[in-house]
């Protein structure tokens, strides 16, 4: 029912694309990250909490419609529904059913609860499309809860020595789950513009993420013992160097590896990811009960071979447009 085309994943019966990277008539979007939600589509379908993010990032005037989790939509006899992916707020797996055949496109997802986004729900299906960003057994992540604890300890320690702390995290998703768990008793929280923009959008829709935007005319000299949350792009610019007495940390699944930690040249690396680690991937794949697994985005050849060999699944590698670079902040 689904095919992999040069525009993206396509369902012929419903005439819809999922996370297409070229302009199409009808796009179903799993979540708001820029490699999944691209501009130029005639019409967008996504989860209710993703809708404002699409408008923020792709323009106010785009044509959208949204669904709640588990709500269904029928298109040319194809039943379409969205299910929690646990990746970021509003992230969804896309379930498509046609004449008894069920496919699930998981997009980006994780099983480990981050304490903010709706936890992943396994959806029974015949065909399951999974990413494999961390599809090697070297990636086994600590619980998000324990990492939030380490982050707060680090902040506390820095603050007690008079230092500011800067966390480098993706502006959409990871920043909010961190902000949600920062101990505001330790000090003030400041935000890079990219993070503040996303927060504002969420805060207009009933959330209350803390932090003050660092405006260009703000006097940064007086900031002390504070936490600053910024995206990766800020690391290499003068924006991040203008804060006095600063220690920096990167929050990413890649921080599991010493080489990546050292390459990032910051003071600390926190292993915090919005993707599945090795154990979660295996658990998710098995929980769907699917016989046919399509592995994309990451270590696809290796992970597909593992699934075929160990679990006797019909697992194949799907070549995507690009291999992720290690410095993507996943």
């Amino acid at each position, binding site marked *: 029912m689904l095919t992999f085309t040069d525009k993206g994943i396509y369902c012929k019966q419903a005439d819809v694309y999922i996370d297409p990277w070229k302009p199409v008539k009808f796009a179903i979007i799993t979540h708001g990250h820029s490699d999944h939600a691209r501009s130029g589509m005639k019409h967008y379908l996504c989860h209710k909490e993703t809708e404002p993010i699409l408008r923020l990032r792709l323009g106010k005037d785009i044509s959208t419609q949204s669904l709640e989790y588990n709500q269904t939509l029928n298109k040319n006899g194809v039943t379409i529904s969205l299910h929690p992916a646990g990746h970021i707020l509003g992230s969804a797996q896309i379930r498509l059913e046609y004449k008894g055949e069920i496919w699930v496109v998981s997009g980006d997802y994780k099983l480990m609860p981050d304490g903010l986004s709706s936890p992943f729900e396994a959806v029974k299906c015949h065909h399951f499309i999974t990413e494999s960003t961390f599809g*090697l*057994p*070297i*990636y*086994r992540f600590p619980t998000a809860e324990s990492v939030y604890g380490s982050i707060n300890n680090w902040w506390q320690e820095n603050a007690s020595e008079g230092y500011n702390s800067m966390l480098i995290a993706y502006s959409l998703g990871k920043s909010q789950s961190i902000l949600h768990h920062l101990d505001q008793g330790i000090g003030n929280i400041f935000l890079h513009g990219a993070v503040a923009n996303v927060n504002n959008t969420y805060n207009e829709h009933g959330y209350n993420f803390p932090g003050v935007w660092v405006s260009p005319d703000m006097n940064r000299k007086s900031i002390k013992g504070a936490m600053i949350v910024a995206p990766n792009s800020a690391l290499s610019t003068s924006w991040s160097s203008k804060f006095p007495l600063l220690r920096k940390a990167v929050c990413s699944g890649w921080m*599991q*590896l*010493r*080489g*990546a*930690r*050292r*390459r990032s*040249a910051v*003071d*600390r690396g926190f292993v915090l990811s919005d993707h599945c680690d090795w154990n979660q991937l295996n658990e998710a794949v098995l929980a769907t009960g699917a016989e046919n697994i399509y592995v994309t985005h990451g*270590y696809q050849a*290796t992970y597909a*071979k*593992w699934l075929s*060999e*160990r679990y006797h699944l019909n697992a194949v590698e799907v070549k995507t447009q*690009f*291999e992720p*670079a*290690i*410095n993507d902040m996943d």
Partner: protein
Amino acid sequence: MKEFTKLVTAVDQTTKTNQKIQALVEYFAQAKEEDKIFAVSILIGNKPKRPVKTSELREWTAELADLPLWLFEESYYTVGDLAEAIALMLPPQQNEHQLTLKETLELLVRLSDLPSVEKKKLIIGYWMSSDTAERFVFNKLITGNFRMGVSRQLVIKALAKYLKQEPTAIAHQLMGKWNPYEENMESMFSTESHLDKSYLPYPFFLAYQLDDQPANLGAITDWCIEKKLDGIRGQIIVRNKEIFVWSRGEELLTDKFPEFTSLQQTLPSGTVIDGEIIPWKDGKPLPFQVMQTRIGRKNIAPKYLKEAPLVMVAFDLLERQGEDLRQKPLEERRDLLKQLLASHPDENLLLSEAMDFSSWEEVSKFRENAREFQCEGLMLKRKTSPYETGRRRGNWWKWKTDPMTVDGVLLYAQSGHGRRANLFTDYTFAVWDGDLLVPFAKAYSGLTDKEINVLDNWIKRNTLEKFGPVRSVKPEFVFEIAFEGINASPRHKSGVALRFPRISRWRKDKSIQAANTKSDLLQLIDVQNS
């Protein structure tokens, strides 16, 4: 072992020198006394003998983690570090051990003589009673590749701070080979222990490459200018009728150089000479490669003594009649050296001549053509300079001639290690032989981090074939490869071997057709040896 792991983790978590030194000082202050000397030994790069094959470590890990070996290997390529890959893939810790660093090292020594089954039992036992950080350190001790972001200089600084001694004194005590099982902090570093180590060389004074115009160094008359020869930097020490020859890498090479044996009879006791050991025949130097084959041999056959006779070209006198001369000005040390060589002539001990230049322009011209004079450039030394410790700026400079260059096509890429793990950073380059591309050089360095990222991304999208960690790529990009020397080599497909190849720039302006050819390389050899 917990304290040592904590130290390694702390050092690993910071890029700041002062924080590393602080972590080391704290370790020395808190660690068990018997552990300290072992920590010093490991941190400055001494390796315990490897007690097990790494292939066994891989198999045991895969078995414990219930993974097929191919998946272990794939994952290892991604990590780029065996010790870390193993630590990450092992199943969760089960209990806790209480072994110290010393006891851990003793366990490794004991392992060497045990049958494989016993080794396996003990190593697995250790793994399962350690957390990930400790497993990593333990594996590093086993695999004997303990470069952990701590330089020798850093350990010296930390020890000096902890022991309240001068760094130069600590550096001296740490020279050469010493055995942590026979030493302790007292025997190594107490002031009394300084006296009876007559075999020890002085820490070498090393020069930085001159990156400025020499005119900025001031009057040329303030400088002693010598040829920079391509050999092995060494110290000849004669004390109590015994001779020791040390290389800059702190290897005791006395046995490799029978040419110098007679000096123990002829030179006065309490003499230390610094110089360059090079192959020399008919009044001029031979290429470095001539000596390299000889150095690699366990026993030096008479054939090699004849084909590659060695001399030391002496350029400094560090000790005379037992007196440390290092604080005297270079000019004075050189005069004493000249006197010494004049009164004790030896055909294997030559004087590095101070060259006569009347202007920096003349110096510059000589440097450009240095290869014609069988040297790789010039050494510029301030006449008033003392003999310092380690690599320092200001008083001594090396000014090497520009490297030779060849344009090669990128043909293979392999992912790097450590900081470059999971990135394709090790490249093989090829030149044209007719319409075939033949590999002629491997290079790892020379690109910026940004260029590496761009190239890494391109390599991943343009892979033709994968052979384990190596990928062949579409021939598309040309790089300028710089190197210090070139020689014929029947062992290489291209027929040549390069000395110190590295990437000097990415020639985005060139198509692969414009890359150099095999005959260009052979011609370079002719030019060099003419």
